[in-house]
């Protein structure tokens, strides 16, 4: 055993000790922060698995965050109603959520039309969605803020029985997954269901085939165009949920450009997660952890040598880590991640002469 390794080993133990200390506190925050990222990543998985590159996720999230919020606000005076004990649901909130979901599908349909029917460059198509979302939401919120509308409130976290969360050792796990609002909780379910459907169902098989080799799919009678449309529009549901999580669960208001790049981190999570729902969710958790631990270090740094080292790293490093990891993965330095073979390629049916 090389003596030089001992201080390093010591540091590793210190780090593990620190993580064990802080994780119970920050784990619910991590899951909450990972929710919109994971949903955005699932939007990407759904689209790209069938061969459509979607860099408009950011815009879809921003647009639906606004739509959900504004419809909720508009419905409050009409529907009224008391929030329920669990999750704090009100008719207005549910109406807002529904609007966000429908809105997500509508925006995605525009993207699908540009990417699939127009066969426009898919990067440009996504960029149009992003610019339009920033512009329209900024425009409308600027108009509305003059009348300073009252928010529709937001979904409240579930309160699990104290007996569960107070359990020694594992209590924090319950807290992480149960002290959450409905959208955050649903993400785990959606991830598992999508993972199973993608790899076990007929729809999943056809989706993967179309994303990899559309011509082969067409020769066995599968309509490439229809399947791509369906998947991209469906992905709008997830995008809407991601948007709603921002204005109806994490906060109760809309701010300009509030997605702040979450859609693009979602894209990164999809890549690092190798275009699988579970992988994307794992990457989203990892990314959210990196940022949460970064915050935690700057607020309450660990003691001793480890603390000195960690605080000497600029806190922005932890923010940039997800992007750096993604670039490294893309460069093939660790665990090469290969997109579906037909990703981003417009499909043209063979001409019948």
């Amino acid at each position, binding site marked *: 055993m090389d003596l030089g390794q001992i201080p390093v080993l010591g540091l590793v133990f210190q780090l593990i000790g620190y993580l064990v200390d802080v994780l119970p506190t920050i784990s619910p925050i991590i899951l909450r922060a990972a929710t919109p990222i994971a949903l955005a990543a699932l939007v990407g998985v759904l689209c790209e698995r069938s061969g459509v590159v979607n860099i408009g996720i950011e815009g879809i999230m921003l647009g639906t965050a606004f739509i959900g919020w504004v419809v909720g606000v508009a419905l409050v005076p009409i529907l009224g109603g008391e929030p329920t004990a669990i999750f704090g649901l009100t008719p207005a909130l549910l109406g807002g959520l529904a609007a966000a979901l429908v809105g997500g599908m509508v925006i995605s349909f525009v993207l699908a039309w540009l990417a699939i029917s127009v066969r426009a460059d898919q990067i440009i198509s996504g960029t149009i969605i992003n610019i339009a979302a920033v512009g329209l939401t900024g425009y*409308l919120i600027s108009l509305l803020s003059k009348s300073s509308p009252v928010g529709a409130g937001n979904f409240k976290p579930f309160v699990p029985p104290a007996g569960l969360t107070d359990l020694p050792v594992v209590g924090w796990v319950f807290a992480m997954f149960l002290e959450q609002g409905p959208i955050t909780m649903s993400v785990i379910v959606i991830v598992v269901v999508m993972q199973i459907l993608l790899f076990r169902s007929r729809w999943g098989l056809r989706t993967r085939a179309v994303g990899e080799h559309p011509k082969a799919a067409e020769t066995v009678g599968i309509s490439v165009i229809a399947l791509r449309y369906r998947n991209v529009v469906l992905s709008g549901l997830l995008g809407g949920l991601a948007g709603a999580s921002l204005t109806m669960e994490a906060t109760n208001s809309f701010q300009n450009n509030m997605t702040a790049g979450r859609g693009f981190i979602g894209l990164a999570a999809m890549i690092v997660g190798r275009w699988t729902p579970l992988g994307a969710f794992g990457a989203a958790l990892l990314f959210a952890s990196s940022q949460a631990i970064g915050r935690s270090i700057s607020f309450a740094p660990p003691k001793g040598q480890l603390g000195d080292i960690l605080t000497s790293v600029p806190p922005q490093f932890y923010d940039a880590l997800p992007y750096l990891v993604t670039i490294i993965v893309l460069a093939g330095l660790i665990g090469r991640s290969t997109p579906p073979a037909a990703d981003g390629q417009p499909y043209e049916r063979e001409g019948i002469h």
Partner: protein
Amino acid sequence: MTGAATPAAPPERPWTGVGTALVVPLVSILLALVVGAVVIELSQLLTPGKGFNVWLPIEAYRAMLEGSLGSWNNIVNTLVVSTPLVLGGLSVAFGFKGGLFNIGAQGQFLMGVLGAVMVGVALRDTTPVIAIPGALIGGVVGGAIWGFIPGVLKAVSGAHEVVVTIMLNYVALSVLAAAVNGPLRVQAAPSAVTLTVGDAALPILFGRNGHTGIIIALIAVAIVGWLLYRTTFGFEVRTVGANPDAARYAGMRPRRIIVLTMSMCGMLAGLAGAIELLGITHKTTASYATSVGFDSIAVALLGRSSPIGVLLSALLFGLMRAGAGQMQIQTGIPSELVDVLQATVLFFLVANVVVKRLLVRRSRTGDTPNARPPDRYVNEAVTG
């Protein structure tokens, strides 16, 4: 890109003449203005207190024009606002010419800001003759690094430049914040901010804020045009962009050219950042507010990737941005209308391809439907 069908000869298109090269962008702008007017009319319904004014769109556009062209100072300000759009647009357009989609102008711009402020602050007490070129070069190098990285990754491991540049945009945000919070921070200041660049500040040449950067941007247009169409390097860039296989067969070295092209993209966007810093803000906080990244894509697309086109479309979007404040003050229409207009212009540019394609298909029979030249990335909306 698909390599599915053998690309056949493009059909004779009656609209590919010089005059018609302008038609599609102009029609797109016109349609976008109409959509903008509809948005304004509809949004009046959201603020019912004020009553309905049918002429509001006209008034808004008029106020916008007044704000951007109404006085000498306003005109100068429009030029100032357009300057980073010209350079950013050139950056994206140069990438398109080389078959690369540079979505990273934002990050390259920020690295240009960082490079310029680093050198500028270091040279702030020398003399403008040294400090200004030094700081500009600092910005250009900063941007070039941010273009070089995705270029090398693409050339060596095939990593797609779109994703890499998106990621680098966010890394640049962090790098700038870390630098301004760390080594560049003025210790006495209550919040993170750098020193001003002192002697490296660009001199004001005309009007209230008409700094030298305007001239630099015009020179850049000329240089990029010269580089693309008058030099052998530009010919190589365009060949690799249009048909990398043919470029390789003809003895060019596509990988090397990709790296150089992306670095050039970074230099141009970095120059934009440097000029913005040295000409306007003179110092930076931990975050530097800009929307130049997406704006540049819009500028390059509307300008059809030609240097002159980029100049014109940058002036158009610059005019909108510069006049938006006046529009908001006079008519209460939020300045974000400009983003809506920008997105709508792009939408019609892209959707125009559909109209074209339908016409093309009708005009001939029995030929293969895939009639696009093998321009890899860039579709008709880009190359024209």
